[in-house]
């Protein structure tokens, strides 16, 4: 009874995971891709539950669905990304190569899998009947703060570096001169600003309304009346 139930749950979750993953690659709208990926993460969290790892399942939802993907969706909304335009692909052979390489990779994995399956099962405590406690919070905490203390600390340093890095990247570079917005400043063609240097036709930025008006030969009162 419970075996059949587990089987059905596994098939459903695995199907959801594979289907969402395929949908993610097939979609051209990044937001739809992101939603499909959230589906994959949800299905994986369910699979972790069937593997008796409730702590990791909860953390999976919190970290992936709740933090990383929210960030991705936020960026997609912020940049207002449109659908990918189907333009002439520069690397035309890329798609067949991808499919071929993926097929080879999958065949390798499948081969190893069946090979491993044929090998005699390793002696392990699999046969013991009592319920496992490995997935529970206490066991994770004990492992994390005793055997794996050093990796844990290194991870915290990594997080700190990521924090600083993200802030440095996201900050607007402090007031470059051309970013300063001067009220009334305009970009004028060079022949108006400096007729002598007409030759290269890069636009030059004038600084003030008054200067722009003088260059254009306008009277300043006319300028302000506008």
């Amino acid at each position, binding site marked *: 009874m419970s075996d059949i139930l587990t089987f059905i749950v596994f098939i459903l979750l695995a199907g959801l995971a594979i289907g969402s993953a395929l949908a993610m690659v097939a979609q051209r709208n990044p937001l739809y891709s992101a939603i499909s990926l959230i589906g994959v993460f949800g299905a994986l969290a369910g699979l972790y539950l069937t593997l008796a790892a409730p*702590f990791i399942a909860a953390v999976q939802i*919190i970290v992936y669905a709740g933090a990383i993907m*929210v960030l991705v969706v*936020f960026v997609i909304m912020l940049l207002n990304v449109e659908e990918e335009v189907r333009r002439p692909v520069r690397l035309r052979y890329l798609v067949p190569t991808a499919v071929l390489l993926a097929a080879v990779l999958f065949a390798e994995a499948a081969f190893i899998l069946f090979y491993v399956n044929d090998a005699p099962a390793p002696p392990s405590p699999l046969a013991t009947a009592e319920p496992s406690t490995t997935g529970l919070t206490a066991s994770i905490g004990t492992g994390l703060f005793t055997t794996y203390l050093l990796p844990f600390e290194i991870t915290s340093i990594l997080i700190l570096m990521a924090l600083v890095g993200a802030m440095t990247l996201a900050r607007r570079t402090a007031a470059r001169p051309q970013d300063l917005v001067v009220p009334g400043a305009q970009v004028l063609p060079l022949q108006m600003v400096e007729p002598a240097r007409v030759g290269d036709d890069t636009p030059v930025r004038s600084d003030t309304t008054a200067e722009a008006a003088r260059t254009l030969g306008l009277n300043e009162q006319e300028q302000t009346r506008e």
Partner: protein
Amino acid sequence: MDWLNNLVGPTVARGIFQFIGINVAFVVVLMIVAYTVLAERRVLGFIQGRLGPNRVGPGGILQPFADLLKFIFKEEIVPDKSTRFIYFLAPFLAITCALMPIIVYPFGPEIHIPGTRIVFPLVVARFDVALLYVLAITSVGVYGIALAGWSSNNKYSLMGGLRSAAQLISYELSLGLSLVGVVLLSGTLDLYEIVGQQGGWHGLRWNIIFQPLGFIIYLISAIAETNRVPFDLPEAETELVAGFHTEYSALKFALFFMAEYVNMFTVSMLATTMFFGGWQGPGVSTFPLLGIFYFLGKVICFLFLYIWLRGTLPRFRFDQLMNFGWKFLLPMAILNLIITATVVFFFGT
């Protein structure tokens, strides 16, 4: 439950019991939520020196049902250029994520039905990572609002959705960190056990005594998480029309509306469970049924606090909100965590 166990086996028996429990819990919660809406309007009326709705039924007691009927019979309007699928998905996400955490809150102690051997705890599901489950569902809840804002294809909706995503990410950190202090004291993530540990001193050994700073941080970030005044920037009507639900009408709007109030309710339940001893109180050990009234009474006090704040406080500006969350609340939460950890390390729990 022995007869049921003998009839269909323990797994199915537990399933049936949990199914009944889920339905009872949802009905109770939704009724309280419906009357919270009415209470909010009446209390706001009182605060602002007017009456509020009092026409439908005696003292306006049937107003929630009248509102519901009105929502059902309104015309559904779908914007022309909206992204249909996500536009329909968003309200369901919002209400689902609001309702899901209810199953882990303990409403009362173990109840023993006199004259039988039936004993059952007043909690639908009890598991090892209950608190993480609540945080996980809460963190997924932001999609409902963000996607609603994006799919409506309206600039006010988009701004509301963006603001809400930024706000929820920012305050989730403080919310989680403020709860870690209690977890450190209790040494478990199981909500039922956390409540059980607060039973000393005649049921008054509540965690707020040991975690006052943590509670204040939790309260502020919980209000921000539920998008309530003074943190209701995602739907600041003076700037953004109605924010993320500008384009929603009829029952889909009702779902967002309900989700907001259910969220208020679950956040209050979490505060009660973590800081105010859940169903613990004087006399619970002799009369276990008293626990339900203690629990719901404490939750209702929190709901009143929400309404009171709404009637009193003006709204934050967005940059003030962000500065407050990142530069004040988060450092304070970390400070609270450090102090708690030090005390627990040196003096034990």
